[in-house]
């Protein structure tokens, strides 16, 4: 089937199989930030934005993205650098394999949650697994970033 969609604001028209998966499609189109970490929708490594909503690209058919706008970290480089700098300052990217999925989720979270508590942050991001960091450094980075954005007045430890 022929589909038409926008990937990072670039219009793409392509012929695809009906069962083609968005994750593979995006990587085939140069979006290597999108990673696969499982086959059971558990890890969050493959998270992208589709019409401004977070989706797991591993369990989304390309066909479902027809006519939609898909954004990956390749299309959010400035924002990724800004928040990523906070991760880097904590050393909270260890292997970094989970970083793209986490970063895109955090960038979306700041828009959706106002002044979130630690618990709300952890719940929002609970689908983003990380095996290296133990999550504490990521939380420190997120809180400092939110603070700078004025989106959280929480105390920072």
């Amino acid at each position: 089937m022929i589909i038409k969609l926008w990937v990072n604001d670039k219009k793409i028209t392509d012929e695809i199989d009906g069962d083609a998966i968005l994750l593979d499609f995006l990587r085939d189109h140069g979006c290597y930030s999108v990673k696969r970490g499982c086959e059971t929708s558990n890890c969050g490594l493959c998270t992208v934005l589709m019409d401004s909503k977070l989706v797991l690209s591993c369990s989304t058919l390309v066909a479902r993205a027809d006519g939609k706008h898909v954004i990956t970290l390749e299309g959010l480089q400035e924002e990724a650098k800004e928040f990523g700098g906070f991760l880097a300052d904590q050393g909270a990217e260890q292997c970094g394999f989970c970083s793209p999925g986490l970063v895109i989720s955090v960038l979306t979270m700041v828009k959706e949650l106002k002044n979130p508590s630690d618990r709300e942050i952890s719940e929002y991001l609970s689908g983003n697994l990380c095996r290296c960091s133990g999550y504490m450094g990521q939380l420190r980075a997120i809180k400092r970033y939110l603070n700078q954005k004025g989106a959280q007045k929480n105390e920072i430890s």
Partner: protein
Amino acid sequence: MRSVNQPVRKKDAMSLVTGQPVYTQDIAPKDCLVVKILRSPYAHALIKEIKTESAMKLSGIECVLTYKDVPDKRFTLAGQTFPEPSPYDRLILDEKVRFIGDAVAIVAGDNEKTVDKALRRIKVKYDILEPILDFRCAKDNEVLIHPEQNWRSLCNVGADNKRNLCASGEEKHGDVDEIIGGCDWIIEQTYHTKANQQVTMETSRTFTYLDETGKLTCVTSTQIPFHVKRILSNALELPESRIRVIKPRIGGGFGAKQTAVTEVYPAIVTVKTGKPALIVYTRRESFIASSPRHENEIKVRIGADKNGIIKGIDMITLSNTGAYGEHGPTTVGLSGHKSLPLYGKVEAYHFRYDVVYTNVMSAGAYRGYGATQGIFALESAVNELAEKMGMDPVQIREINMVREGAVMPAYYGETLNSCALDRCMAKAKEMIGWDEKYPRINLKNGKVRSVGVSMAMQGSGIANVDTAGVLIKVNAAGLYDMKIGATDMGTGCDTILAQIAAECLHCSVDDITVSGVDTDVSPYDSGSYASSTTYVTGNAVVNTCETLVEKIRDKGARQLGCAIEDVEFDGARVYQVDAKESINLKDLTVAVGSDKELSATELFCSPVSPPPFVVGMAEVEIDKETGKIDLIDYVAVVDCGTVINTNLVRLQTEGGIAQGIGMALYEDITYGESGRNFSNSLMQYKIPTRLDVGRIRVGFESSYEPTGPFGAKSIGEVVINTPAPAIANAVFNGVRVKVRELPITAEKIYNGMKQKNI
């Protein structure tokens, strides 16, 4: 210090957090053949017949390989220095399959769909053999897992394939029966730790191709590039000079990639077809055919005098290596060597072990490497001793713990030159509020809050074995290029080693470019495992810098026309101590008429392996109705000697503890009756999410290790060792239930409470 003991950003940090294509699969050529494996449905069987013709006929299929197509020479996939203690018990493909998931055929083709179709078309007939699934029955069983003639053990580790033994041995000091016999208090118990998966977020993956000279080039997510080179050479019967291994950024290791899990498959495809080939393990494959932690059953007998002084320890470890022996003989050693020395007043010990083959997936290396298992057993036994004596478990440790200056018979007779275990204990106690919280506080809602404690140690590299090379040269810009053979797997060693070099060369970390591993270019390094990088490679950096500074001074002195004794180097220039003359490094590098290149390379191998220490304390909340357990707070205080990078050490600690928490509470590879692995996805094998880890708090109490680079010891592994015993202790202190088998589930707690009628 300007660069050491600082929170320096990792050199690759910004490219990782912005999602740059730096991992193996991201940089693989687009025309790679897709490689996949057909796997055995039986735990133990012989292939009677295998038909591949129909699969081969599919258009787009490049090759289908079976045991008939591979060299009949056994090797090991374990990443260890030659001669490897792990037996040579593998073929790339074997006529005999030894666990459900064992490789039966390799298929390579243009695309995934065609390869999947070809896999379904291969017809195999098996002679089904009786499997050994209970590791307690493996030794001297009449069923033999490796009866083959060409099975080989290269080292004297007590291996015997006619007895299903991958290793066996014993060590002792003093007469343990006599010492324990004379003790007032004796504990004798058996503990059971399970196989756990490392679950690196990036599963194992490799691509291979022939370069312009026909050399087999292997780009792979590995901790052991130089060992992979030898393993491929063994497996494919190719000379090592025809093989090159490159490590890009890798998505987590934790020991999983200290075994060459995927490399041989695309390599043989490339050798047979001449074409580039790529294998990417699915999460499922990484759960059923990888290299998890060895399951251990450990019997511990300890004796203490009437004051609680522990006088004797007897430990017997039975370890399950599964179908193949990767890391079997060495992990088991650590269950004793890296637990027994924690107790410094022991007069006699006896440590015995067997490592057995069974028909489950082969075990391998996982952070902690046997120490984790031994420490769970010994620390649990010490907690039971404290309980029996009516002593606070912190107090029994305070009076028994090993101290600086001690000679440790159970630790290769090494002397403990640096140890702040006592300070770690005091600080952990204060951080968690032990005295206020021990043993428990009953809450109004039917729940109870309680605390538990454990100590742990590890090593810093393998003494007299691990070897690291470093090459530093001054480049034309007057800055430094550093080549290392150690593999950064996210742990940040590229940055940490640059910090050490910058400290030695009086420059900034940014002035040092670090290139990761390419076996054609990098100096030799045995690899990043056994907590070796900061200590072993770090020392190689220090030595290389010393040599380089001498060369810089020598060349500077000659340019300035004076003796080397008259000049110093301050990082920017060589200057005469008593005169005004100086020459800066950049000018010196390109000085006309000079014949000496400014570069230095040194190898380092340590005669000792100084242990880092941790004290871990857990606070849990248990529902007395259901046994449901929540981790509220985890405190760890670490002595890793001088901290080189304050951020990365903290992250290593928090991450290791989170993994330890998973191991303590739910991670468990379970098999069904026929040997089927039930833990084959992240649904069945759950790792901690950010909602599960509670709060992890970390503190440091640094000793100074005189043999370490700037006083540093290791950090990577020791941090995973305390959660299981500390949480088990907290459970006991809360509801008086002793859980001696991991993981510590609500069900076990509930059943324990029911028996006790709490």
